[in-house]
């Protein structure tokens, strides 16, 4: 699965994306965030404040409890500041 990072999140992680094969018990966006945070830095720093993270599954905004089943790409980024 492709995990893309944008803006401050991308800068902390240090790259645009990861390709990760998750264990089968990783089912929701929340599970992904916890799984990666448990790996330590830089994920633990980037994901320290989950309230300040937003997510998109295959280019659609999604809440953190949504399932990642059949999803190609999860994007993780801070609250937007466009306009």
């Amino acid at each position, binding site marked *: 699965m492709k995990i893309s990072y944008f803006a401050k999140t991308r800068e902390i992680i240090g790259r645009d994306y990861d390709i990760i094969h998750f264990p089968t018990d990783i089912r929701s966006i929340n599970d992904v965030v916890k799984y990666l945070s448990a790996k330590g830095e830089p994920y633990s720093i980037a994901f320290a404040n989950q309230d300040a993270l937003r997510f998109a599954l295959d280019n659609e905004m999604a809440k953190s409890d949504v399932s990642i089943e059949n999803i190609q790409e999860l994007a993780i980024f*801070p609250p937007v500041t466009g*306009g």
Partner: protein
Amino acid sequence: MIRYISLQNCPFDPGEELCKFRSESIGAIASFTGLVRSENEIVALSIEHHPVMTQKTLEQLCDMVITRYHLLGVSITHRYELLKLGEPIVFVAAASVHRKAAMEAIVYMMDRLKTDIPLWKKEIFADGTSRWIEQKQSDVDRSFSW
């Protein structure tokens, strides 16, 4: 129906964008331009975006606002990458029969843009350092108020 969407990394002229509406049914055109202003001693603004999502979200926003306000035309232009002081960041315009719809539409569009479009702004300073702009709670509150 006139419908322009442009996501671009080069400067644009809001005046040219405003002139794109030409129809004898149009009685009212409202526009809004957001510009890079000299705050916090910045020398430039850098904008990162999620290309696929941004384009799609702008298209959805146009469709929504056309329906909601019975518009005859709508236009959104948004810059990304590096912007200099004084340059336009975003331009939205709405054309309608009467003035109320066009005016309300640009307020609505800007409120939505602030919270719905995957774009992130970063302030660039003279010494080369930079800082990501934080989302404003007032923008979130306005967005939820619709």
